[in-house]
């Protein structure tokens, strides 16, 4: 017996399609950034399916945020490592204090 509810992937593609006009009117570089956001949401389709929300777009938005935050954490780490690398190493005396 065929499924009645569209799969989460179909639903996701439908939601993405619903913003086609929005996307068309964006500048090219903004279009690519928007695509990144949707690609980010697509990484979490299994979790979105399991969540079983009646309006899954809310879950997709959260998934976009999630990936944004991961990226932020990654960049923060990079920045911290760079700061650590450029700051002068403590002298032996300072360490011993």
């Amino acid at each position: 017996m065929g499924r009645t509810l569209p799969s989460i992937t179909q639903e996701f593609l439908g939601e993405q399609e619903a913003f086609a006009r929005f996307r068309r009117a964006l500048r090219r570089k903004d279009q690519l950034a928007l695509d990144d956001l949707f690609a980010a949401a697509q990484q979490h389709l299994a979790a979105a399916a399991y969540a079983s929300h009646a309006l899954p777009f809310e879950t997709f938005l959260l998934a976009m945020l999630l990936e944004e935050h991961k990226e932020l954490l990654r960049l923060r780490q990079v920045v911290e490592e760079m700061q650590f690398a450029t700051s002068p190493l403590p002298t032996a005396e300072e360490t011993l204090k």
Partner: protein
Amino acid sequence: MNIISYASPSTTFLPDPASGKTLAVLAPHAGRNLMLETAARCSLNGPVHVLDGGNHFNAYLVARAVRRHTENMDAMLQRINLARAFTCYQMESLLAAAALLARQRSTPSPATLVLDLLATFYDENVQLAERQRLLRLCQRYFKVLSGYGTLLISLRPAQHDRPDQQMLLDDMLAFVDDIWQAEILTAPAIPRLF
């Protein structure tokens, strides 16, 4: 039998529950989206019983439709009861159970929406005489159900090369009190230069 067109979905075309009338929508894809919109609107007024013969109940669409009208979406969706039939035998058994329940119920009956009634009956793997027999039984249950509350049935046109489907469809068209022939609803075309 009058054929009426409608332009935008609303529940105004539904008969007065007290009238005992059986209403059908005849449209390509058995008016799928219209029926789902109608189910959503009916849920605002009370319980709805949906019998789905065509695997049509895209609950995401219904949820969005409900959400457009109310913030109380979950409660409205809880009011919609759904059962699906995948063969004409199952459709007959679903309707028999619904009719029995309507007779036993002391509270007002819910609105009953039958989605794509004939989808399972158009299946050639069951002999035509058998399908006709089952459809006659279904009509008996429709009589019962329409006496207790709103009843709306959606039908899809027969395929051109299938006289058996046409016979079943004609049978249903002769049975119902009113037919709404749906206009094909498409998004308004936006003129483009290129």
